[in-house]
């Protein structure tokens, strides 16, 4: 794949904005309390990381996110494969899932609080709910996109259904499945944070809200920025894992021919 060259003008813009931020903050053009200098925020970020405070909060958040994500992944892939492969399963489950899908996950947070309290169970439920649908639909569509002819060929060779699933369907559907999983990773993180902001005692979401209420503003900003970094990092890691596992899929050479 062609690498995009570094966009220097873009980098310069970002640097200029940071400098402007610093200037505006130090000159107190905006209320100092709300607008700490960028350097103060980076300092806070640094010290929070060094003191392991941030690490502790993220541990709580990420383990919940991972738990919810794993639950949703298993359920979503299983349902997606079964529904994509067996028409009767599709007819049976599709109306139920489609009725549940339009409900925004955040709207279920109060329901989850009522039924499961304000701690991990509620959060993991909410995260799993949000992550289920992208995984499910991407799996479903990926399985359905598998060449009918390919499966018919396998059947003429007397492959059993489980064997077809394992040897043909899953490999072919795996890029699509991974796309669904990757989308869900982002959802897992954000739903974890939102549920922590609304209720609970631990986690980065809680940390950000508490910092704000205690007017530890640079810490609050630091927390918010760290989310961007962690989110980006998770996405990159996932992409790398995806490319490793799906190496065969990405091995497409692009030939540019001048004619």
């Amino acid at each position, binding site marked *: 794949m062609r690498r995009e060259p570094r*966009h220097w003008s873009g980098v310069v813009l970002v640097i200029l904005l940071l400098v402007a931020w610093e200037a505006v903050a130090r000159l107190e053009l905006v209320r100092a309390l709300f607008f700490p200098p960028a350097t103060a925020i980076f300092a806070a970020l640094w010290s929070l990381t060094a003191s392991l405070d941030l690490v502790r909060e993220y541990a709580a958040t990420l383990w919940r996110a991972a738990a919810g994500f794993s639950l949703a992944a298993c359920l979503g892939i299983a349902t997606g494969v079964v529904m994509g492969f067996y028409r009767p399963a599709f*007819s049976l489950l599709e*109306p*139920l899932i489609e009725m549940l899908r*339009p409900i925004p996950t955040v709207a279920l947070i*109060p329901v989850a609080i009522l039924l499961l309290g304000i701690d991990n169970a509620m959060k993991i439920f909410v995260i799993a709910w949000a992550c289920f649908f992208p995984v499910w639909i991407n799996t479903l569509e990926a399985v359905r996109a598998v060449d009918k002819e390919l499966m018919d060929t396998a059947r003429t060779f007397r492959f059993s259904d489980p064997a077809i699933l394992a040897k043909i369907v899953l490999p072919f559907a795996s890029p699509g499945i991974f796309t669904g999983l990757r989308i869900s990773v982002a959802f897992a993180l954000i739903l974890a944070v939102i549920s922590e902001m609304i209720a609970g005692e631990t986690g980065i*979401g809680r940390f950000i809200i508490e910092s704000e209420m205690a007017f530890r503003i640079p810490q609050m900003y630091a927390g*918010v920025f760290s*989310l961007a970094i962690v989110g980006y990092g998770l996405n990159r890691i996932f992409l790398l894992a995806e490319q490793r596992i799906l190496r065969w899929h990405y091995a497409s050479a692009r030939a540019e021919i001048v004619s």
Partner: protein
Amino acid sequence: MRHSRLSGIVLVIVLLAICEALSRSGIVAKNYVPPVTVILQRGFELFASGVLPTAFLDTFKRLAPGYVYAALLGVGLGILMGSIPRIYRLFNTLIELLRPLPSAAIIPVIMLFLGLGDQMKIFVIAWASFFPILLSTMHGVRSIEATLIDTARTFRFGGARTLLMFVIPAASPQIATGLRLSVSLALILGVTTELVAGENGIGFLILQAQRSFRAADMYAGVVTLGIVGYLLNWAFVTLESQILSWHRGMTIREIVP
């Protein structure tokens, strides 16, 4: 491909009946999961008394402006960034840095500057809706076939007319997709802001119902929200298929070989 969803609909009805039975018999505490019929009844009551419509109106009062700002800015900047490499290079780094930041995470920050009221919520909704629209538009414009642009050039159309007559129509499927996806996102963020710092709106209604242990009200609100979200999406899809009927499926009917 139409296929029978009968078994699925039966399943839903059966599940609802089971919930009803479990609740009425007391096996599941009524204050956690009221009977389905009670929820429906409460839903009608809240609708008739105007409580639900008012709540939705309050939410939409913020949703609409936020979404519209995001759409105008997103499509505008998307077209500029997609068609002018210089502008793309200038803004892309910034956009790529801002993108991984989950929109809900900026709620505390914006609360500092804009308080807890409508302004904050509109800003957050606009921020969240902006990125998918920008990215889809940019992608749509950038992935335009070179041959199409060559056609514009060989007929000597100027830059502005090329944009209007070639680029925007060609990118419109992707732009439409971005606009459609952002509606769901806008709704989600709208509800989230109400959960975190709300005084009115459907999200606030649901949360208040939970806090006051009015379970039936809470469920009624959630279900209505789901219906509204579905209708919103349906409306966009229908609009899309009308305007973009030319794009629907590239199945070629051979008229004359």
